[in-house]
C-alpha cells in the first residue's frame, strides 16, 4: 500500500448526500478479477451518457477537476455494498482523500486498506470546504495526516480526528496481514481453548 503523508491537490465538490457504492462503481465493472483499471469507470453512470460520451456538467469531467485528488462530499458517502471496487476505482482515478460528515462503515474501513484517507468533519467545516472546492482550479487543499490538518486556499486551517492505529498504518503503508501474523501465538492459543470449550464451532 502506498504511504500517505501529505496531499496537496484539487478538491472536487460533490454535495449530493448518500452517494452509494453503485454510483461510485456500477456492478457492471465488478466482474474483474483485478484491483486495477477501474478509474475510467468511476461514477460511470453519472459521468457518461447512454452513448458513452462524457457528461460535461459532471464535476470530474470539468477541466478544473479532471485531476482532482480530493472529494468533498455530502452526508453518508459510500453507503451500500461492501465492494472494495469503490475505493479501488477512486484510487485508480487519483483520489486519495474523501471528506464528508459521515461515511458508511464498510466503505470507511475499505479506504484505509487502500491508502485513501476518509475524513469526517462537522457540517460547518464541510460547508466551508465545499465552498473552497467550488473554486475550480483554485480549489487546492493541503491535507497533512501527520498533523491532522486541512489547509484551504485562503490559509484557513481545519483539524480532523483519525484513529491512531489506522493513521499509523496509512503513514507507514503497512500491511495489516503482516501485523496480525505477528500475533499468531495468540490466535493459536484462542483456537486451542475454543476447541475444548466450544468444539462445535
Amino acid at each position: 500500500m502506498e504511504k500517505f503523508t501529505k496531499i496537496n491537490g484539487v478538491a472536487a465538490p460533490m454535495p449530493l448526500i448518500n452517494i452509494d457504492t453503485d454510483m461510485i462503481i456500477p456492478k457492471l465493472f465488478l466482474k474483474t478479477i483485478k484491483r486495477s483499471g477501474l478509474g475510467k469507470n468511476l461514477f460511470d453512470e453519472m459521468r457518461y451518457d447512454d452513448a458513452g460520451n462524457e457528461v460535461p456538467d459532471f464535476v470530474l469531467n470539468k477541466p478544473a477537476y479532471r485531476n482532482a485528488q480530493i472529494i468533498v462530499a455530502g452526508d453518508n458517502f459510500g453507503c451500500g455494498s461492501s465492494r472494495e471496487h469503490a475505493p479501488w476505482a477512486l484510487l485508480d482515478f487519483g483520489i486519495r482523500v474523501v471528506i464528508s460528515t459521515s461515511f458508511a462503515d464498510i466503505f470507511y474501513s475499505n479506504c484505509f486498506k487502500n491508502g485513501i484517507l476518509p475524513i469526517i468533519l462537522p457540517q460547518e467545516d464541510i460547508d466551508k470546504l465545499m465552498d473552497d472546492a467550488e473554486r475550480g482550479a483554485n480549489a487546492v487543499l493541503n491535507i497533512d495526516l501527520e498533523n491532522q490538518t486541512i489547509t484551504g486556499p485562503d490559509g484557513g486551517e481545519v483539524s480532523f480526528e483519525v484513529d491512531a492505529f489506522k493513521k499509523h498504518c496509512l503513514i507507514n503503508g503497512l500491511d495489516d496481514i503482516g501485523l496480525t501474523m505477528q500475533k499468531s501465538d495468540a490466535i493459536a492459543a484462542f483456537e486451542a481453548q475454543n476447541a475444548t470449550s466450544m468444539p462445535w464451532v
Partner: protein
Amino acid sequence: MTAKTLYDKIWDAHLVSTDDDGTSLLYIDRHLVHEVTSPQAFEGLRNAGRKVHAPDKTIAVPDHNVPTTLDRLEGEVKNEESRVQLDALEKNALDFGVHYYPVDDIRQGIVHIVGPEQGWTLPGMTVVCGDSHTATHGAFGALAHGIGTSEVEHVLATQTLIQAKSKNMKVEITGKLQPGVTAKDITMHVIGETGTAGGTGYVIEYCGEAIEALSMEGRMTVCNMAIEGGARAGLIAPDQKTFDYVMGRPHAPKGAQWEAALAYWKTLFSDENAVFDLVLTIRAEDIEPSVTWGTSPEDVLPISGNVPHASDFEGGKVEAAQRALDYMGLEAGMKLTDIKIDTVFIGSCTNGRIEDFREVAKIVEGKKIKSGMRAMVVPGSGLVRAQAEEEGIAQILKDAGFEWRLAGCSMCLAMNPDQLAPEERCASTSNRNFEGRQGRNSRTHLVSPAMAAAAALTGHLTDVRDL
C-alpha cells in the same frame, strides 16, 4: 458482574487480543465467500505464499454472476467476464481446500441463504463475508457483517479481523403486526425512521413481541437490511425457534455437542440491565405495508401515502429527493397506488426463502398476473426451489404466469443477464433501490413478497390488504 448486551457477549467471546488504543483482534468462526469479492483476495494469498488459515471454516458458493435460466447447465456461461470470475472461484476453492458448492449442486444458492440452510451459521458465532448483506445471519444471534476484499484476504490468512467495537442500539417492535404486514415491512419501516445513516457506528439488536413472533425466515429478512440503515450488524437473540431451525442441519452439532451448544446458546441474550447507547421503540400496529418511492432505502412510505415533494425535506435531502423524483419519473403528490409497474422480481437474500414464496402463492393462487407483466421468482437456493416444487408452490406460481428460475442473486443487483431496461419500473423484493441498481436507468420500488404479488396481479403498486 456488569450487565452485557448480546453484542457485548459475542464480542467478548471472540477477542483474541486488545491493544492499548482499543483496537481488537476478533476471531472469525465462519467465512463465507462468493465469486465477486474474493478473486483479488486469493491472488493476494498466492502472491505472498500464504495458505488459508482455517479452510474448514471457509465456505465458497457462486451466486452473484450465475445465470438463473433453466438452461444454465448446458454449455458455458456466455458472458466471458462472468465465466472467468466463476472459474476463478472454483479454482481457488479447490486449490485452497475450502468447502465449495458448485453451480450444479442442489445446495448452491445465495450465500446468505446457503449458510443457515446448511447449518454453517449458528448462534453466538462471528460470521463474515465480502458482502454487505451478511447481516442476514444476525437472525440467529450471530455477529455477522460484510467486509471488503482486503479484509477477506485478512480473514483467509489469519481467521481474524482487526476491529473497533461498535455501539449498541436496541430497536424494539412492540405489539402485533396487522394482517398483510410482514417482516419486510418492519425492516423497511425502521430504515424510514432511522435513515440510511442512522445506524452508522452501531450494532442493532431487534427485539419485542413482533420480532419474537417472526419465523426464522422473517427474522433473516429483518436483519438482512440492517446494513441499509447503516448498522454494522443486526442481531436477534436466539430462542426455541432458532434452536428448532438449526437442529438436524448438516453442519449443526449433534449428540453431546448439541447439548453443550444448546446450553451455551441459552445464555445469549441481553442482560436485563444492559445499557444501550440508543433505543428506538416502534409500535407494530403503526407499521403498514411499505414501499420505497425514491432511490435510497430510506425513501420509505406506507402504501396508503403519496409521493412526496422535494420541499417536504430539509438540508441536502431536498436536492437528493428532487433528483430521485426525476430519476424515478414520478410526480410529487401522486398516490403511490397509481404507480404502474412493468416488472415484478421476487427473490434475493432478503426475500428468497420458502416462506416468502408461500406468501406469494397464497395471493396469486388461481389468478393470473396482469397481461404484459414480466414477473419472475428466483429461489434463494436449489433446496428452496426443490421444496417449493414439492409443496406445489412452484406450480401455482407458474400457472399464475411467473417465470420459475434457478437459484442466484439475479435481478437484485443484475450482474447476471437478469436486468431491467432503462426506465423499466420494477416492484422488487430485494434490498436496494439505488440508481442503476437493477440496470442502467432502471426504476426500483422495494416491497414485501406479498406486495410484489399484489402488484403483479394489478399492474400497479397495490395495498395487498385491498385484494
